[in-house]
């Protein structure tokens, strides 16, 4: 009997607590800074071109083979505007296959791919989750603006300079 009353007391005490439920489609909880959403390609604003050179290291290391890439000669390099000899021609990530593991970001040598905060990508068209280069860069720009992104190699150089 006493135990039942104790249980009732727990429920009663909880009834006056503030609800923690967020009514999802209407209400969005903020994601954490490190949140790994879908991978996107970053944009180099200094040179006005993508960071990605199409080196294929992410494609090779992807556990689910969800992406494909194609490199080309960089026209800006010929003009002397960019230091990148090669640049990405086409890039596709199949978000339906992506498992958000972050391995591509780990292996990238050029800070060209980042895990964005984008995680709501339900579509109503077939293959709508296959993102091509323009869309990935668009998502990347949005992410860069959101978190005031700086390339990791630059950051490390800055840290070394201060240390």
């Amino acid at each position: 009997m006493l135990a039942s009353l104790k249980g009732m007391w727990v429920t009663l005490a909880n009834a006056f607590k503030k609800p923690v439920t967020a009514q999802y489609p209407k209400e969005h909880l903020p994601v954490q800074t490190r949140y790994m959403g879908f991978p996107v390609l970053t944009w180099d604003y200094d040179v006005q071109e993508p960071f990605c050179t199409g080196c294929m290291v992410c494609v090779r290391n992807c556990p689910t083979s969800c992406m494909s890439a194609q490199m080309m000669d960089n026209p800006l390099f010929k003009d002397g505007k960019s230091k990148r000899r090669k640049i990405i021609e086409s890039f596709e990530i199949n978000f339906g296959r992506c498992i958000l593991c972050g391995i591509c970001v780990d292996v990238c040598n050029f800070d060209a791919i980042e895990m964005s905060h984008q995680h709501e990508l339900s579509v109503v068209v077939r293959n709508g989750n296959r993102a091509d280069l323009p869309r990935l860069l668009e998502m990347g720009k949005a992410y860069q603006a959101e978190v005031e992104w700086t390339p990791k190699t630059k950051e490390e150089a800055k840290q070394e300079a201060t240390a």
Partner: protein
Amino acid sequence: MAIDKQLDTLEVMLNMGPQHPATHGVFRMVLSIDGERIVDVEPHIGYLHRGSEKLCEHEQYSQIITLFDRLDYIANFNNELVVCMAAEKLMGTEVPERAQYIRTILCELNRIASHMLFYGTFALDAGAMTPSMYAFRERERIQQIFEATSGARMMHNYFRIGGVKQDVPEDFSQRVAASLGPIKETIEEADNLVTFNEIFLARSRDVGTIDGKTAVALGLTGPNLRASGVDYDVRRVQPYLVYDRLDFNVPLGDRGDCWDRFWLRIREMDESVKIVEQCLAQMETGPIMAPMRRISRPPKGEVYVHAENPRGDLGVYLVSNGGDRPYRLKIRPPSFCNLMSLKHMMRDAYVADAIMVLGSIDIVLGEVDR
């Protein structure tokens, strides 16, 4: 013509699952019942089979960690740990202190999260709706810490061979410490609400009993084994990570019934909270990753590593031929082995208790079928 043969009674076959919410996944049981009494039970597994072991042979070591995330999808960190430890043991890598403490904290938090989910779902199996809400609320706290640390709520891919992916956020210690208080409160609530509730006691006491000797013979591990009074905890017997420096108790049951299995997990949460507190106090700054080559190539050889998961003793047998992919990787999932005791526990129980017994074993089908 007179019928001189006497009419026999037949056992009724009752199919349960695979799409039954109380089977905690896609699990099918065929019960043979005599009235309300279960005579025999035939478990059918394999609905979630993904061929993880075979897939491991075609993936690099860094990619295998993602597969282990998906075995026991309620205790991801504990799974990642075992495969990392296996490769590290084969390569003879010394993991830095800080990484070991980070791993211990995350694994113990994951144990709390897993047991918290068990508390909710088991009460739900017993017919109580409310505890599952409270349990999920508390689990969410831990999940948020995980998200802040690893970037993902469930499929973290955070442990690396030789350490962890990146250092924990700056406010990690404060956040963990702040969440331990509410967790302790919830454990107390669980005791008040469910554990010592007479209705729950009547429902789970002496149901699905298994004695220690049989439990050992059937290969039970983890809380299920300890509920039968067998003092076996890998953290104690073969300490890994930093468990040999930590002070914690291993709770033991005596009757080995559903209530013991429930009570024991609640007590384990207490111990995990204690472990996390000690780790936070002992943790020092330092490197989080041993110097490693980019692609791990363990030398030729074989190794067996096991660790105490929330569900039991997860073992990994790794055979390497010196390449960047394992030659063979055998997984010994605790849930699968614990499921062996189902027949024994369910015999002579009532149909209404079938769900209770299954729930008390706390299986995760991702791990059973793997």
